[in-house]
């Protein structure tokens, strides 16, 4: 019984540590450099390159985001769902809302999809 308790506590601790290490909110909070765009329909590569150029997204701990560069300049607030699968934004400009599906999020990579278009990013800091 004693051994069972130890194993159980060990498993609980491991689960807790694993959960802490992969906290989506923590992984998201940083600046991201856009490095790829996949669009719902074919768009000329030159147009995509213009949008990728110097494009960054930044998410801060206080729930705010900002974007700059070819993807568009915007700022507002964001919320991440508890599973880290969906990211909701409210833009300061016009208070418009969008929901992005998070296809990938770890400490180095972020991949977001919205309206059939996917943007991939790599972590800056």
């Amino acid at each position, binding site marked *: 019984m004693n051994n069972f308790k130890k194993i159980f506590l060990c498993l609980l601790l491991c689960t807790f540590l694993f959960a802490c290490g992969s906290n989506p909110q923590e992984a998201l909070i940083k600046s991201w450099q*856009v490095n790829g*765009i996949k*669009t*719902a*329909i*074919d*768009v000329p590569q030159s*147009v995509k390159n213009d*949008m990728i150029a110097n*494009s960054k*997204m930044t998410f801060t701990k206080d729930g705010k*985001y900002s*974007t700059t560069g*070819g*993807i*568009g300049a*915007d700022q*507002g607030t964001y919320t991440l769902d508890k599973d880290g699968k969906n*990211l909701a*934004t409210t*833009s300061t*400009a*016009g208070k*418009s809302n*969008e929901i*992005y599906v998070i296809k990938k999020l770890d400490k180095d990579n972020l991949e*977001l999809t*919205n*309206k*059939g*278009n996917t*943007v991939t990013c790599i972590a800056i800091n």
Partner: protein
Amino acid sequence: MGLFDNVTTAVADQQQQNDYNTALISAGVSVQDLRAQNDAGILTIFGNVTDQATAEKAVAALKTQPGVKDVVNLLEIEDLTAKNVKMKIATQQSNLNIRKGPGTEYDIVGKAAHGTSVQLIKRMFNNWYYIKTDSGIEGFCAANFLEEIK
């Protein structure tokens, strides 16, 4: 607005461009490198056509598209930039009006003095040219007010 609003806009623009191309193909019209900008229902079209009849068919086909109230036709037949062709303003006495588009219905953007030379940049669909004057004004003028420099 959102995280990548320009991507969404670019895709919507491309979709519209594809729809315009489909409309032209359905009408049996071929426009090379078609580019269309819809600004509040006024569709400005750029691209290359072989002749005036093709350009007019293209305009007629695009006028039927949803969200298009009118079409500004800036289709061209030939890009002459590399040829560096110069011609002389051949008005009787007066200055020649340089316009914003290839037709007298467009606003005047400047004037070129009688006898001065201009560089031909594009030959438009309707016997007008897109030109650049010696003083740097760029715009459109009718071919019948230009003559070869001898």
